[in-house]
């Protein structure tokens, strides 16, 4: 059990800023770890607290809301 802990992180990214930034990172060929799973939302304000809890319930180790 010497494997390094690699958390699964669910990311809710706002279409107009954070998602665009992630997209730009991709276009610019910056690499980011694959354990970050991005879900695009039209506004980070639409992220209900229950989305965060549900992510954790279904096995996410962390949740990032970016907007």
């Amino acid at each position, binding site marked *: 059990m010497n494997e390094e802990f690699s958390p699964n992180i669910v990311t809710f990214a706002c279409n107009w800023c954070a998602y665009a930034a992630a997209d730009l990172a991709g276009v610019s060929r910056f690499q980011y770890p694959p354990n970050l799973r991005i879900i695009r939302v039209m506004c980070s304000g639409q992220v209900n607290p*229950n989305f965060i809890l549900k992510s*954790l*319930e279904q096995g996410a180790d962390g949740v990032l809301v970016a907007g």
Partner: protein
Amino acid sequence: MQLTEQQINYCMECGVCTGSCPVSYEWEAFSPRQMIRRSLDKETPLSQTREVWACLTCARCSERCPVGIDFPEFIRSYRREARDRDNPPRESHHGILQTLTRLQTAGLQQNRTAWAEEAGSFRDQGDFFYFVGCQPYFEILFRYLDLDALDPARGALKLLNSLGIEPVISNAECCCGHDALWTGDEDLFRQLAEKNLEAISASGAHTVLFSCPEGYLTFREQYPRYFGELPFQVRHLTEFLDQELPSSGLSFRSAEDEALTYHDPCRLGRQGGIFEPPRRLIDLPAKGKLREMDRSRTNAMCCGTTAWIECSSCSKGVQLERLNEAIETGAKRLITACPKCRLHLTCAQENTGLQLPVEDIYSYLARHLES
């Protein structure tokens, strides 16, 4: 308890149930009497209707039923089937309370005691276990209502400490499973109950005290049905304080309000049979200023929603009617002994112009305790 055809024939179709039902006052088509009859209907089974979720399980009907049909149990038995038939309840607050309940079985480390470190003294092992229930979660979820949902728990701890009792409060405690059970999710109920029984047995407590009527009734009535006789005593805090406070030498300042009234929670009153202890406790500071609503004790009205499902304008109608009934007594403050009743009756006052403070019995007692 699905009724057999023979049992259904006992139903005299007198309609006392429908006449007593707070839901049918608001939603005319909702009829417990017809639901009993319709449970025989093979074409549209009860479990495929919305009515199966609309019942508040407040037991006002079964209290009066001349042939003793336990309507809440009858409904509960169909709710499990309803889930299996893809007819789930409409979860209020986006289902966040149901997610929180399920998360508690996932083995996450909870922080349930931070409030108690500031509020008083408690321990990890001892004779008395204080089952706090969902209040630490409510405190965060219902901040927008501008009420401190942990205040009752602080009050309860202060009262217990004043009696020289340092209760066990545990981070390993879980939701009691009341809502899971009443929404037809017996598996979740079992998982939660097993965790609670483990946490209590690890504390070595011989008595478990509940401030919440739902937790109390679930432990008293349902846990033994699923797990046999419990190795500890289950007591509601109003009952316990009513026995301990008079001889304790503690005294209370007089209440400032000119009149108060008390709302009987369904699970504590009609279903738990505890009517007088909370009234005697309120009277310690109220000194005769407690006024009864027209409908109280076994006749009391429900606070309008249960198990965090199906909140609707029907619920609001029930709640506003209850609040107006309280105001009609001339009371300036409504006391209740259930954290959920307090939340519902406070929420219903938003944007209505009604201003009746709803206070929990433990906060109220602790506030008037003379130190």
